[in-house]
């Protein structure tokens, strides 16, 4: 049969057979070719494309990368000191995290997953607030409207339809707002991923979907997650362009995301970007990665470190020397010290908050329960005295 390779030739009057008129909706309505990703992840650093890259941008990215790495190290240290309940590190993924934050305007929205506190921090959120969830004093440590950062989403892929809805609402209101939503490779298997991308494409919503393919969903490697040529290839099934990019190349991620944001802003609809990267640390500090991957694999990726890639380019351009590097590191140290200080201060907790934010108006039922707890706490204090 010929479905795979060629097409059957219509024969108009073959043996007297009348060729029926093709009914409406007969042909695919979109040309799939421009939607398909290139077979190799797009790169800038270490290729001829780097010549076009703007030095100021590269320096800015470099600073954020170094600070991001320091942030990851500090947060991990805080788990050991019991100041964080748990921390999912983005060490090795700083390029994608930082670029996602930098491509957005202030009026745009970021929809991070539970792993993406670094993106939130790079967007300007106080890291102590970003880590509120993981410290455990409240679920969302910040006001989402302040920096236009949706709450960190733990249920995987559930934040994607939110981003679509928000972007759609903004468009209906005539506001120039783009939403960028982040998800992991594992998250692409969830039904919510599918539904979100479909709605976005049908509505031509100004959304950018950034998949960080870091090779694993906890212990499950990509090969057990999908048989697709790449995750970016999923885009064509929704009628949006798919882009494959080197997720450790901050300049490349920045460029691909910027282009996607530009398309969204211009009313051309959503884009799916897959950033190929690697999770250098375990899933979280509580995970034991040796159970499911080899040191050799980790080492192979260490040779492709996002900071080293950028340092080589900047050094080549004569923009970095020992002194400049030290200045960047000092800045990161200062940042880490402030974070430490912030996290070492005990959060102020009010158990009554448990009842205050369930409904706009407290129900009498919750008022009674709040009273009960208040009485219990008073009795506790009484006893302690």
């Amino acid at each position, binding site marked *: 049969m010929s479905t795979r390779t060629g097409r059957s030739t219509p024969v108009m009057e073959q043996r007297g057979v009348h060729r029926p008129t093709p009914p409406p909706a007969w042909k695919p309505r979109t040309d799939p070719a421009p939607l398909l990703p290139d077979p190799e992840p797009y790169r800038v650093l270490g290729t001829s494309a780097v010549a076009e890259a703007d030095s100021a941008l590269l320096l800015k990215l470099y600073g954020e990368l170094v600070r991001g790495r320091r942030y990851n190290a500090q947060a991990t240290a805080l788990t050991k000191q019991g100041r964080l309940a748990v921390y999912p590190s983005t060490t090795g993924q700083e390029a994608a995290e930082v670029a996602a934050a930098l491509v957005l305007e202030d009026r745009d929205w970021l929809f991070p997953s539970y792993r993406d506190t670094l993106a939130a921090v790079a967007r300007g959120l106080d890291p102590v607030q970003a880590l509120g969830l993981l410290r455990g004093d409240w679920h969302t440590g910040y006001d989402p*409207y302040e920096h236009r950062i949706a709450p960190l989403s733990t249920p995987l892929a559930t934040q994607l339809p939110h981003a679509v809805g928000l972007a759609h609402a903004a468009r209906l209101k005539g506001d120039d707002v783009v939403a960028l939503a982040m998800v992991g490779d594992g998250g692409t298997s969830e039904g*919510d991923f599918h539904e979100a991308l479909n*709605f976005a494409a049908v509505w031509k919503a100004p959304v950018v979907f950034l998949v960080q393919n870091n090779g694993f969903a906890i212990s499950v490697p990509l090969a057990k997650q999908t048989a697709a040529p790449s995750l970016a290839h999923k885009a064509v099934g929704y009628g949006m362009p798919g882009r494959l990019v080197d997720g450790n190349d901050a300049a490349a991620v920045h460029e691909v995301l910027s282009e996607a944001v530009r398309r969204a802003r211009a009313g051309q609809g959503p884009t799916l970007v897959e950033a190929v990267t690697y999770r250098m640390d375990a899933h979280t500090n509580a995970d034991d990665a040796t159970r499911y991957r080899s040191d050799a694999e980790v080492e192979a990726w260490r040779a492709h470190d996002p900071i080293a890639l950028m340092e080589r380019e900047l050094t080549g351009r004569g923009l970095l020397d020992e002194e400049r590097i030290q200045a960047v590191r000092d800045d990161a140290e200062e940042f880490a010290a402030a974070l430490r200080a912030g996290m070492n201060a005990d959060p102020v907790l009010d158990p009554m908050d448990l009842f205050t934010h369930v409904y706009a108006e407290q129900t009498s039922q919750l008022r009674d329960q709040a009273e009960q707890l208040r009485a219990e706490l008073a009795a506790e204090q009484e006893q302690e005295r």
Partner: protein
Amino acid sequence: MSTAVESSRPGGRTKPATMAQALQRALRDALAEDPAVHVMGEDVGALGGVFRITDGLAKEFGEDRVTDTPLAEAGILGTAVGMAMYGLRPVVEMQFDAFAYPAFEQLISHVAKMRNRTKGAMSLPLTIRVPYGGGIGGVEHHSDSSEAYYIATPGLHVVAPATVEDAYGLLRAAIASDDPVIFLEPKRLYWSKDSWNPEAPTSVEPIGRAVVRRRGRSATLLTYGPSVPVCMEAAEAAQAEGWDLEVVDLRSLVPFDDETVCASVRRTGRAVVVHESSGFGGPGGEIAARVTERCFHHLEAPVLRVAGFDIPYPPPMLERHHLPGVDRILDAVARLQWESDGGMN
């Protein structure tokens, strides 16, 4: 013709209307009054919904306000969450009770919790309309009573109208609420009629108040939604047996109106909870338990329950056996231990 002219003026005449018409009118008024209101769901546009509740709205307000979505309930609710985040007031239609289940994760993990998760910074003024319950001869998955799932989820309001007037008032109140509201529409009451003045529709108080539909002294029937008319009928029939039954229409399951309910039960000393959803783990357990906690020394008999059986909803030809009917309610009333104290007073 004169009637039509008169009824188009405010203060126009009261005339019979169906619950479906009242719901449609509530949506239209909400859309007209507040540009933030958006109606969305499967087939809500040109078709006007499979129950025609959104009939004509897409034409009147445009497809951006009344939107046919792709066929994906988690996507519908999930995008509505995002729209609400941006300040809109989405009114989502789930086509049938059982087809709301794909949206369960969005509902439980986001819709119900968003205000709480963000310490009040982000609220979700969302109305989720769910045509629910049986009695319409629907094939499987078209007759579920799913309220047990919703009431067990803190952060949601859960209401169910039983009258044409409440259908209008409660839906307006739900859309006006700054919190997510599960709005349960009793399918088999869609075509029930009441005299109602659509030009000056009475608004109800904010969500959360039960109402005494019938005064009585012998015992209280506690009920809501599709079972309200059944209980009214049972109360009429009970007169023949010497029982003067009070009927309380809860209207709202969350918040729950302990005050009205307990006042009634303390007065009558006996109560039966009636609902269509399965008994085990259904709302009746909660209601019976909280009434007993609060009114124990007023009770002459345990609070009894008349509910759907603990089985998957039956096929059309057998559904009448499942649904709580007048006889089953009267049987329960008869078991309220009348011999011990002469409750026939």
